[in-house]
């Protein structure tokens, strides 16, 4: 699942300076994602996190992600 999330985020944020996915427990369902992208520069934190949720909609709806921590940052 970690690889799948990495792939989805890289697809959604092709220009990102950094995309990192951490399996927090080693159990394959608690993740922290770190995305640094200029697309976030003028967005509120709420809007930034909504973009992450949108990118991960498929595994999210399938119930494959039990917990998601989100760490987003612009590039400015």
């Amino acid at each position, binding site marked *: 699942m970690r690889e799948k999330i990495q792939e989805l985020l890289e697809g959604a944020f092709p220009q990102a300076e950094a995309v990192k996915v951490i399996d927090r427990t080693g159990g394959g369902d608690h993740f922290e994602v770190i995305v640094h992208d200029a697309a976030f520069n003028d967005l509120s934190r*709420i809007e930034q996190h*909504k973009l992450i*949720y949108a990118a991960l909609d498929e595994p999210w709806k399938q119930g494959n992600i039990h*917990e998601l*921590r989100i760490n987003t940052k612009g590039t400015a």
Partner: protein
Amino acid sequence: MTYSDKIQELLQSSDVALFMKGTPDAIMCGNSERALGALRRAGAPITAVDVLVDAEIREDLSAISGWPTIPQVFVKGELVGGADIVEELERSGELEATLLSKLGDQYWEQRGEKTVAL
């Protein structure tokens, strides 16, 4: 009244609304605990709602907020964020600044928490 109506009503009437898993006395999820802890440290007047009472509460809430996960923190009816954002805002000092600007500079006199059922 539907849950959706009750949620809207609560958002209108609460200074700080926290939708969480469990209650402040019996927290059922680590992320709900993180959000609650940040609000407590900031001295927020918290109105908590346990979404585990009925799955429909969570569905209606997410439809209103556009936010898929629990917890969800609202100040004066406006979504502030989930656990990650609220902790980030606490670290940067923005949480207190938001409470000050939205609730007034004596807000901590109302600090405390109550749990309400929808």
